[in-house]
């Protein structure tokens, strides 16, 4: 019995992810997958949410209604149902309509689904951020003769993002948690991988605790980064600080 196996089986537990190279490799790949899926969806959902929030304030009534409709659809349905809908509903529909040549992978569906879900939440949070920009600043900018896009880029976005940061953090935490729904459609993220391991090795308690700790650390890391960002971006005399 080598050292790793001794550590992995300490106290009568069976942490195969410590000593079994196959399980360890898939567990680490699972963590990597959760992180990259989260990062990718963070970018898409933040950009998408910000664009929609700006359109909401700039464009006319039909646009407003469309955006409200989009937000309602994805805020009022559970993320697991959305993932199932995309993968088993739309995915099967596409396969039947376009034949076998057109296959959207489970990972791609998870990305689409999470982007729309968190994107809808981010739209709301940036919308509130844009609303929080004081009217006087915009009037001042207009009086100085700044072009509309300069006002948006230099004044609205920087202030809106600052105001939105605390609730954005909540949404991104929700995003990391929601990546775990990928497990239902065989996206090899950390919950799916752990599930495979405990189904094979029957070490449920061990994998549950490993999962718990892993998510705790991942989300803890995100919150730390977001707090740091918030502090760095604090404007003296603006907002609560």
């Amino acid at each position, binding site marked *: 019995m080598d050292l790793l196996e001794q550590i992995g089986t300490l106290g009568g537990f069976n942490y195969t992810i410590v000593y079994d190279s*196959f399980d360890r490799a898939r567990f680490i790949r699972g963590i990597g997958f959760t992180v990259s899926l989260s990062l990718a969806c963070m970018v898409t959902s933040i950009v998408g949410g910000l664009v929609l929030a700006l359109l909401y304030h700039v464009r006319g009534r039909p646009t407003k209604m469309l955006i409200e409709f989009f937000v309602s659809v994805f805020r009022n349905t559970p993320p697991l149902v959305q993932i199932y809908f995309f993968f088993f509903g739309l995915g*099967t529909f*596409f396969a039947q309509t376009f034949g*076998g040549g057109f296959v959207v992978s*489970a990972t791609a569906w998870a990305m689409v689904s999470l982007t729309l879900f968190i994107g809808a939440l981010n739209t709301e949070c940036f919308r509130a951020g844009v609303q929080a920009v004081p009217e006087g600043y915009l009037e001042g900018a207009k009086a100085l003769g700044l072009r509309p896009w300069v006002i948006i880029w230099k004044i609205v976005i920087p202030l809106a993002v600052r105001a939105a940061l605390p609730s954005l953090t909540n949404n991104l935490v929700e995003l990391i948690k929601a990546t775990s729904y990928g497990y239902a459609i*065989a996206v090899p993220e950390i919950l799916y991988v752990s599930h*495979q391991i405990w*189904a094979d090795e029957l070490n449920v308690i061990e994998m549950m605790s490993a999962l718990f*700790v892993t998510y705790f650390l991942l989300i803890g890391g995100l919150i730390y980064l977001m707090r740091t960002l918030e502090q760095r971006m604090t404007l003296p005399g603006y907002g609560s600080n």
Partner: protein
Amino acid sequence: MLSAVAVLGMTSVAPAQADKLADIKKAGVVKFGVKADIKPWAYVDSAGKHIGFEIDMAQHVAGKLGVKADFTTVTSANRIQYLQQGKIDVILATLSDTPKRRKIIKMVHPNYFGDATNVLAPKGTKLKTWADLKDSVLCGVQGSFYNKPFAKEYNAEVKAFKGPPEAIAALKQGQCQAFLFSDQILRIQQETEASLKDYVLPFEPRDSDLWALGVNHGDKDASLAKLLSGIVKDLHKSGKLLEMAKPHGLAGNPYLRAHANK
């Protein structure tokens, strides 16, 4: 981190010495964990009633114990945990008897059914022999014991879903080249499901896979396991198990035939 994990793991308790058989008799009910999506072994009819070969068998076993049968739906991925947590008394759910599982729960011998492993693939598949699975992408079911050995042996990627319906939906979409599962289950589903008529089982079945009833270890004198073992032995010997298999289209099963009337 290891110590924190160990503390979290501390909640595991050794199962107390219980007399399950006495508990069952006292309650007048034996709780079976059964599948609900594996036709014709165990599925539900339009009224939501559990039916199938394994259900008939469970009714027979309950009758022999002199109690009523109660059914809880389980999946491959949760049946062993349900048993350990006491949600069910007996697993009767296409449970393959493997050495690893024998350490965790008690398998009732003799085995009541014999199966093998195979894949289901679209007609015209490039897969001709098992060796063709090298570097392939397969669909599977979460909790099946063969997922890991096949992933390792053929360097295949097994995408595992909740149950056979989800795995078949993914196969139809083209998410994988083939669906890795029980030979008998695939065979029956392919024969009975109209939507699978353009699918084939291209390989010779491999690795005999025997199914057993599962109960918890640590039962007083293993009295429940012993009694169940006698009942299964008798079912084989009297030819009654093969008889039960007939209406479900399973009478051709080589294992059942080899053990009937012996």
